[in-house]
């Protein structure tokens, strides 16, 4: 049976309009609820972060709030509470790092960026997710981080190494992926402003969809050798949706010697 709102009595029309208005208001306040229902999921019901992601945050230029400088745009900061709680000696080291950043930043050598820097560095990374693990492939260095989500725990000291990207053990708290990372080396920085950590670094990451194409990323860093208390970084990650977009391997560290290969006709 066809109905036409215009043929209804005026109170019906009003009701129809106010229902629409009410729906609109609900939509305004109900975004999160709608997103929870529409986010991509694996067959087991867990959120599926598979895809290519990148932040628009300027966090990699310096996590703390800063004005512009010759080598960085201004930035409102990505640290909760604005300041990284360095221990006094560590703060001195951070200042030295900052002074020498044009030569000492490991990313300039093409080295693996570490955790959490690889996530907010301005190059894309791709997430490949299965029930048992989540592999993150970074375009920069094409380094691979595996987050185990199969219920296994960090290896004991006898079996553990110090990794560039740590030992990653994740679990789900509702739709939030909580990833506990430790066993790091001390060779990575947190940004190109010289913020740093030691091999005692412990990171807890929280990954959460706020809509199907946006992840809210938080990382809480603890390091008794460097910081006086745990502190938290946050950034939004956006899904790359450009047509035919893909990762392009960026083995930056090979560019110092790659001109010697391959052999060419007529060349020594």
């Amino acid at each position, binding site marked *: 049976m066809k109905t036409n709102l215009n043929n209804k009595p005026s109170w019906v029309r009003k009701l129809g309009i106010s229902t629409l208005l009410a729906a609109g208001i609900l939509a305004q306040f109900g975004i999160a609820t709608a997103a929870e229902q529409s986010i991509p999921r694996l067959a087991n019901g867990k959120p599926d972060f598979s895809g290519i992601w990148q932040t628009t945050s300027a966090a990699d230029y310096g996590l703390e709030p800063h004005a512009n400088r010759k080598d960085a745009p201004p930035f409102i900061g990505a640290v909760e509470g604005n300041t990284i709680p360095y221990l006094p000696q560590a703060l001195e080291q951070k200042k030295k790092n900052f002074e020498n950043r044009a030569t000492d930043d490991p990313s300039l050598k093409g080295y693996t960026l570490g955790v959490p820097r690889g996530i907010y560095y301005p190059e894309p990374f791709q997430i490949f997710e299965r029930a048992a693990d989540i592999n993150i492939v970074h375009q920069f260095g094409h380094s691979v981080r595996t987050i185990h989500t199969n219920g296994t725990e960090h290896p004991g000291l006898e*079996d553990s*190494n*110090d990794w560039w990207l740590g030992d990653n053990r994740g679990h789900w708290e509702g739709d939030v992926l909580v990833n506990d990372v430790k066993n790091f*080396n001390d060779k990575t920085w947190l940004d190109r402003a010289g913020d740093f950590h030691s091999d005692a670094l412990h990171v807890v990451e929280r990954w959460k969809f706020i809509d199907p194409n946006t992840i809210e990323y938080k990382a809480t860093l603890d390091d008794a050798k460097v910081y006086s208390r745990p502190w938290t970084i946050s950034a939004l990650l956006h899904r790359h949706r450009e047509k035919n977009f893909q990762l392009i391997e960026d083995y930056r*560290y090979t560019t110092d010697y*790659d001109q010697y290969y391959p*052999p060419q006709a007529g060349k020594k």
Partner: protein
Amino acid sequence: MKNRMSQGKLGLTSLVLGALSFASVATFAAEATTAKPAQAQQAPAGGGIGYEKSFPKIESGKWTGPKLADGQPDVNGHWSNTISNHSNFTDPNGGIPGDPKPPKTPLPPRNERAPSRVSDPADGQVPFQPWAQEKVNQFHVGFHNPTEPQYIEPLARCAPAGVPKSLYWHGYEIAQYPGYVVFFFNSGTRIIHLDGKPHLPENIKLWNADSRGHWEGNTLVVDVTNHNGKAMFGRSGEFISENGHVVEKYIFANDGKRYNYEAVFTDPSVYTRPFTVTIPARKWTADEKPNGWHFETRVVNVPGQGPTIERDERICAENNGGFGMGAEKTAKK
């Protein structure tokens, strides 16, 4: 369950029997004749390099094994080459060409060593143009006393092993996702796109090239372009240029235990004709013991589920760790 495990081991035994592993290829003649099944069942100590003198042909055809939800044949898991390593591309058991310190025990005759990875032409040699053959010959000398940077194999400087060398370097993981087959190699990662998108613009040249694949029954067919031509095929110095084109077939046996790589390499600027590369591969399971080379993993227990295989981080930059790896033992803190 017990039955299945022991069958798995039996199947392996025949492989391992033929495939005793050694750090030095030269010792294999002596050891192979004295090998006992009991020894052969032991995983190689300290990381070894297996070999087979021959391997089964696998025909392209239907896939009758398990499939993934998206219809791909399920070949997820940990795999490796079964013949030696990257020391010598065309004579895999022959040691590094031009080695000034040849093995103490003479090599067995050529026909008792594993076949060339070049399966066509029949002579097993890469059909290089004369200038390119001359470059390879120079590399055979220069490699052992590199007075010029081009005589250092790029893999030794942490460059990705590239196509096809990654397949006969260490073991690796094949992981499948809707739209992708991903190879997590010891040195580098290859993402094979199954969604039919076009290749990258041709001025973008990559160590691992650019890969577009599709499944034909039991066979993953991959079109490979955008090589940077820099990776070399081994310590024997063979190479492709940035004009090269490779069509790869990964032909999987329906029992899921093996695949053969058969790939046609074409490059009119380096070769006189296309040639075919054949590399046999086998799967490893959590029932087996990691051996530091072909099965370079750790087996861990998943609470309530049993053993599973984990793969350690593989990061190499400026040879910044033991054997090119980035990891150091965690200090007692």
